[in-house]
């Protein structure tokens, strides 16, 4: 019984069903874990791996410089920025807003720098449901290529204080 000490040598061969099950489970696990590195070579959806440290002041300065250069309008009090696909794009998370509203072109790849100037936030593009973490003091470099057009929302999905549920930003893809 499993509540008594087994006697003697218990290193004994397996029964047939155990053996088959063990091999099936092992093979399936091999498939599942080989998928991860392989997907980095053959897939086009992978978690980005480039990141840097950045101070809140430096990041705010980059956001301001971008707004001066590329602002094309205003929506609900937020500047609408239409960046050049060849240059880095900056998106700031703070309590409780995403700045600026980005206007991106479909099927162009952008290098988007994500950072927070206060707390940890969660970057969640809806309705396509693409989720990343945004950490204060860290710049996360995301190579993003919108493959559908329309109006998208950025929700915050990491708790960031009592206004957390109002933290909604916008991306327009044209």
């Amino acid at each position: 019984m499993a509540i008594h000490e087994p006697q003697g040598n218990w290193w004994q061969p397996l029964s047939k069903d155990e053996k088959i099950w063990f091999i099936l489970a092992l093979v399936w696990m091999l498939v599942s874990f080989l998928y991860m590195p392989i997907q980095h070579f053959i897939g086009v959806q992978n978690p980005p791996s480039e990141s840097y440290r950045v101070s809140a002041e430096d990041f705010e300065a980059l956001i301001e410089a971008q707004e001066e250069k590329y602002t094309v309008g205003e929506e609900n009090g937020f500047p609408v920025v239409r960046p050049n696909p060849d240059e880095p794009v900056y998106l700031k998370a703070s309590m409780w807003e995403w700045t600026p509203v980005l206007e991106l072109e479909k099927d162009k790849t952008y290098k988007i720098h994500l950072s927070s100037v206060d707390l940890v936030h969660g970057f969640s593009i809806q309705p396509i449901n693409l989720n990343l973490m945004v950490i204060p003091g860290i710049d996360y470099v995301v190579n993003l290529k919108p493959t559908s057009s329309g109006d998208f929302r950025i929700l915050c999905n990491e708790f960031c204080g009592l206004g957390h549920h109002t933290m909604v930003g916008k991306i327009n893809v044209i």
Partner: protein
Amino acid sequence: MSFEKRTCEISGLEIEKNSESMIKLNMATAIIFFAIGGAAGLLVLLTRWPAIHLLPVEWYYRWLTAHGLLALLVWIIFFEVALVHFGSVTLLKSRLAVPILSKITYGLMLGGTLLVVVMVLGGQADVLFTSYVPLQAHPLYYLGIILFAVGSLIAFIHFFINAVVAKKEGEYKRTLPMVSFGIMAASIIGIMSIAHGAAIYIPTFLWSLGIIETIDPSAYRLVWWGLGHTSQQINVCMMVACWYGIAAFLFKAKPASEKLCRSAFVLYILFINVASEHHLLVDPVFSTWHKIVNTSYVMHLAVLASMIHAFAVPASIEMGLRKQGYNNGLFEWLKKAPWGNPAFSATFISIVLFGFLGGTTGVIFGTEQFSIIRHNTWAITGHFHGTVVAGTTIAFMGMAYFLIPVFFKRDLIMPGVAKLQPFVYGTGITILSITMMAAGTFGVPRRHWDYNFSDAPFGYQFDSTVDIFMGLVGIGGLIAVVGGAMFVFVTLGSIFKGNKRA
């Protein structure tokens, strides 16, 4: 060695006096906190149910913090402390090596819990379960967590002291019984987990006092999850030990292969802890190799272990029942199994639900790329209600139904209610878990007060299917609350008012 003990006529176990009182105390405390944590869960549920939307925003987050702490940590760890005593004393027919340590454990854990609950409900710690820096709570909140953690750390270390004493006094020769071995594995994971807890909560406590200036948010997330996810692996390991235990007590079941089952526990010990990486898959800072090695190459070996257990335990039950004569066809043993015994039905429900709901989704959501489409959505909440609630909590319920008559020497009251309880609770959690995952698939965030975004600068409406799932989560949750209340009434009622046995 001679020490005071009695032989239990239900189980044949020899029960030593010092450990008996600690097991009773920890089990009863666990169930009381289960009741409070469940009530907190009901408030959270009624707030997320769009038709009711009960609590104002600040109280939603406070009760959510309380629900997480009480249901995920306090209920489960108090019960696990009882199991540590059970596995290292009762099953080894030994004695409690250092009785005072058990008392210190209990005092620290209870004191810590009360401090934390007062701080959270007093509005001094609106930081949720994870308290990611730079969110800051009152220093006493961190102190409460530290006290609780130190208490449980002592309990897990106590396992090893008890085992050494038992071996020295000849109570076992070389190999721990399977159930004790599982609880030993859980204790190793527990020590590893709580060491990480100390490594992160002590600096955070000093930071909240102003002694340390800053804490790196990425380092915090890394080390915190060394506590946060690893503590869930204690639960997995304890749950599996309970499966083996119930199978042995009810069916005299022997693990089909000591070699395979023990290897599976060793794989847990070595590899399951790095599953903490699941929380960091879409984080900046950590390299692709850190993510892949920790989730893939290593973690999958632990999943392999779970798949071994998921086969070995029902197989040992099947072999036990076939020996009793239920040998016709493939499934006669399953049909004739003692479904009216809540200890059995809870265990079987736990095995099935943990596998299908919690286990599969855990591996899938923990795959590096799939994390992009599931991270921090409600699907994650659905996943861990499939593991910690449908798996661990239901397994512990089964264990409680078995252990209460053994240790309290009282019969279960309301046997009819007890018989139904695992089915009611299991049904509720299944609906809750599946519909949460479905809503998460559409992007509904976890830990969110208002999924209609009525005060946001840009409005957003989820796909209208989501409304159906939100309603179903509410209904599943209510069924689960009824099942949970049944458990609390039966167990606490039996503890205090059950018929006394000789």
